[in-house]
């Protein structure tokens, strides 16, 4: 048994791809070793990654595969020998078994005598197997974008390979890939250690040897080192705090091998620019952390994470350089801000004719016209249902929503679209309702993002997204599989999330949104509605953590009203643990089956039901109780109190149980049978208003 270490040295891997590739290399290497019987299942392993390397370490790797002994049965003796001499069939079998013909045995089977052999497949050495198998695993690693670099285009990888290291115990393993053969050599930090080779005697030395060469190979250790350094450096100015930003911590962790942190400052006068702009410049463009004071207000400082360590003089140079860049960026932003004020948002609307939205859907001017119409239609529906919404502000926001796309600030900082429009609207004296709606129109950009703060913003955001979806679907550009180039799924998720979470009830249904967005085209509207319903299913599962069967049950009872579907799903989840509910679910399934079986079997129509039919006592009780329950349930459903409604239905349990125990539904007398079917149908319908409980998986 020995430790195994493999490292592939690369030119800088894109930060966004490192974590995935690191995990995949570890998974593939371990699976390969297991498959090849070189490690036991669940072997201990670790992995490492920096911008310039991916590595995997595995404990307890066998140096040799065990031999495999196999008992083989060959052709029948009759076929294997002719006139006492072995035939070609015997020779072929001996060759397959890897032994001489005269060493073959014969065994007796019910079908007669057969040739047999015990074959021993000799285990191969681990170095041989790894050298053969590992390159295939490397070639299989997924990269979002890869490249050729060697003449003749022999392989593609994320970036050119620069070295390979493979050690089994103290022995190098002959893995070759990308024009390199693995050895026992790795390399340290580009600048701090240079190009000197670092020779390893054993896998266990790896982490420490790199540490001495200014590389922290363990990603978690590097992340913690950065967090600590951020804390420490920030504390040098009393009262300051760095703004937590997990995604940024991840990025800088993947951009560095030997991180350190420098605190820089900028002139306080830039704080007059909107915080959104300053933070975007620092975070998105410079990968700097923003710093705030005790009250959470932006302070004129930033933190840069460096991939080096230097003395005070060097640090002063680096700080100065970063400050200079940031000042230039802020100057640009201020210049754009001031320059943009020369033309009001109103005047910019006209310029949108020259900004393409999508080549077949026309310009943003055309989109603006469509979105205004759509927003106004949706607002009409919302107002009818007493949503508190200011239609004038909404229309103004819809008109001005895309105007910021012509501003210099948005051209420079595209991620601030909408936000800039909102800020300009305020600066230019538009009302808060208008400005906030413009500001929030792209929300939510992800499942984690918040929804628009106001009903005007919510309607505008829905209209904008629905217009894009309807337009793209109209062109046949629907998302397929993993391909969704126009992020239509994200847009649809956004619509669902807004309808589900907008604080002020926005009583719109998916069907209404789809129809309004698709105009007269019913086929298209149906498609869009289906797409939105599919996203509702996703939302219930992913954002609300609802179980798969609950989601199916609830959506089978209706997938149009988002808030209602969420409430129903939560109610089902809340009561599903109770015994009564489980029993009612089972009964529901039974009733549904009975109704299904009796369908189309020539039943008399419902009008002729139970009059004059003598009721079985259990049926009479159930009918009574069900009648009472129905009144309460109807009232509870009116208040959307689904938990209470389900609990009410669950109280029918003893009566349902008794009914099924004592009564045969499919009575030979058609009138009796019909009266029982009608009763069951009524109960099933009550429950179905909440969820199709036959979808619920009952444990045990």
């Amino acid at each position, binding site marked *: 048994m020995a430790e195994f270490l493999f490292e592939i040295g690369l030119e800088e891997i894109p930060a966004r791809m490192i974590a995935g590739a690191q995990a995949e290399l570890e998974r593939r290497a371990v699976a390969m070793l297991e498959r090849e019987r070189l490690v036991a299942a669940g072997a201990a392993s670790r992995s490492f990654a920096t911008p310039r390397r991916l590595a995997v370490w595995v404990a307890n790797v066998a140096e040799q595969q065990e031999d495999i002994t196999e008992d083989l049965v060959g052709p029948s003796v009759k076929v294997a020998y002719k006139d006492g001499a072995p035939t070609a069939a015997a020779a072929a079998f001996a060759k397959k078994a890897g032994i001489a013909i005269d060493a073959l045995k014969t065994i007796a089977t019910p079908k007669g005598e057969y040739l047999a052999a015990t074959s021993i497949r000799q285990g191969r050495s681990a170095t041989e197997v790894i050298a053969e198998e590992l390159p295939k695993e490397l070639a299989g690693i997924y990269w979002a974008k890869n490249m050729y670099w060697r*003449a003749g285009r022999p392989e593609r990888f994320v970036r050119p390979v620069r070295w390979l290291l493979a050690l089994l115990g103290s022995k190098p393993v002959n893995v070759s890939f990308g024009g390199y053969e693995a050895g026992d050599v790795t390399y340290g930090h580009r600048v701090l250690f240079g190009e000197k080779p670092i020779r390893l005697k054993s896998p266990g030395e790896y982490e420490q040897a790199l540490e001495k060469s200014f590389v922290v190979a363990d990603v978690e250790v590097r992340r913690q080192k950065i967090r600590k350094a951020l804390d420490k450096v920030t504390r040098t100015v009393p009262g300051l705090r760095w703004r937590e930003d997990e995604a940024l911590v991840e990025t800088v962790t993947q951009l560095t091998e030997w991180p350190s942190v420098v605190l820089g400052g900028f002139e306080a006068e830039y704080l007059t620019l909107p915080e959104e702009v300053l933070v975007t410049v620092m975070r998105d463009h410079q990968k700097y952390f923003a710093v705030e004071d005790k009250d959470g207000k932006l302070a004129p400082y930033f933190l840069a994470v460096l991939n080096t360590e230097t003395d005070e003089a060097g640090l002063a140079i680096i700080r100065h*350089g970063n400050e200079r860049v940031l000042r230039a960026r802020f100057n640009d932003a201020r210049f754009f801000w001031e320059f943009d004020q020369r033309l009001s948002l109103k005047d910019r609307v006209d310029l949108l*004719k*020259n900004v*393409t939205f999508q080549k077949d859907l026309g310009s943003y001017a055309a989109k603006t016209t469509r979105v205004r119409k759509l927003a106004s239609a949706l607002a009409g529906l919302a107002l009818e249902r007493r949503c508190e919404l200011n239609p004038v502000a909404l229309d103004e926001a819809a008109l001005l929503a895309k105007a910021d796309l012509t501003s210099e600030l948005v051209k420079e900082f595209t991620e601030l679209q909408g936000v800039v429009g909102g800020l300009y609207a305020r600066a230019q004296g538009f009302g808060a309702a208008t400005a906030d709606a413009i500001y929030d129109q792209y929300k939510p950009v992800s499942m984690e993002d918040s929804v628009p703060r106001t009903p005007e913003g919510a309607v505008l955001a829905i209209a904008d997204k629905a217009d894009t979806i309807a337009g793209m679907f109209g062109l046949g550009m629907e998302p397929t599989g993993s391909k969704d180039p126009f992020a239509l799924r994200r847009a649809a998720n956004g619509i669902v999330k807004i309808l589900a979470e907008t604080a002020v009830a926005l009583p719109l249904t998916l069907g209404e949104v789809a129809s309004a967005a698709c105009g007269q085209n019913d086929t298209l509207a149906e498609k869009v509605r289906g797409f939105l319903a599919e996203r509702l299913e996703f939302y219930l599962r992913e954002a609300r953590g609802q179980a798969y069967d609950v989601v199916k049950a609830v959506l089978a009872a209706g997938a149009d009203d988002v808030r209602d579907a969420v409430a129903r799903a939560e109610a089902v989840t809340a009561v599903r643990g109770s015994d009564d509910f489980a029993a009612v679910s089972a009964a529901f399934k039974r009733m549904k089956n009975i109704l299904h079986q009796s369908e189309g079997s020539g039943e008399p129509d419902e009008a002729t039901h139970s009059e004059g039919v003598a009721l079985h006592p259990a049926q009479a009780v159930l009918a009574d109780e069900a009648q009472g329950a129905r009144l309460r349930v109807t009232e509870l459903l009116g208040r959307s109190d689904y938990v209470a409604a389900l609990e009410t239905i669950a109280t029918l349990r003893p009566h349902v149980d008794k009914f099924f125990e004592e009564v045969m539904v499919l009575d030979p007398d058609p009138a009796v049978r019909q009266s029982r079917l009608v009763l069951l149908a009524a109960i099933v319908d009550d429950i179905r208003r909440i969820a199709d409980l036959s979808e619920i998986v009952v444990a045990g």
Partner: protein
Amino acid sequence: MQAIAEKKAAHTFQELLFTLQRFWADQGCVLQQPYDVEVGAGTMSPDTFLRVLGPKPVRIAYAQPSRRPADGRYGENPNRLFRHTQLQVILKPPPVRIQELYLESLTAIGIDLSQHDIKFEEDNWEWPVGGAWGVGWQVMLDGLEITQFTYFQQCGGMDLDPICGEITYGLERIAGFLQDVDSIYDIVWAVEPDTGRKVTYREMRLAEEEQFSAYSFDYADVTKLWEHLNLYEAECLHLLEEAKTFEKMDALKLKRFPVLGAYELALKCSHVFNLLDARGAISVTERVGVMARIRTLVVGVARIYAAQGQQISELAKK
């Protein structure tokens, strides 16, 4: 800070260029002069765009003034230019130590890497009109993007083999950094050795920025620009059409066939398009169409360039 500024003042703009050219000449690069037709980037010079095609090894370096009419700011913005200068280094096939060589070039211009923070951050490049793309990095020095580093993968819609390494230095950026000035116009271009007078970037280029910004935003005659575009395009298309008869040409006619001339015409179209764009004269509906027209020219030229090279070598074999 004073000490920093003094230390960095060592390089004038022109010394920076000399030093980098000297460095790459020592690595075996042929120093080419800037191409004399308007281009938007050093990549568009035929020394890059056409020479990366085919199997022939290339090492070449040149400074390329690059015009981007829409980026003009009448000389009022300290960081943005209508015309900036790129130093373009083309290495086909890329040497194994290409990154290390690049870092050595920084040392050569006086950047002590032990006192700076340098990162290679993913940044891929593409020029859809040229059917060209590559993967690579932007090189960040103390938070400043100083270089675009690309491994060319495709050009003219054709796979490259071998691929090509391209290093593009932003000379104004680097000079501003080395001289620690906040405005490009304050960069010292040269110093008169006898008088010690400093000639600045402002002195050399400001008028050009002011006038060309005004030309592209305010003066350029849209109707005439469209005419120019149509004329250049027609002539380029005519040559592309004639290139279909390569197989019937004898060796002399073949090698004299003006593929390079066709490329210049395509570049002219590209530049006129940029002017029209800056002038705000291209509507949404037109835009996609005009870009497709120019793509037809540029990609078409790349194809006939490759075809010409192949046909010549086939004739030589006979």
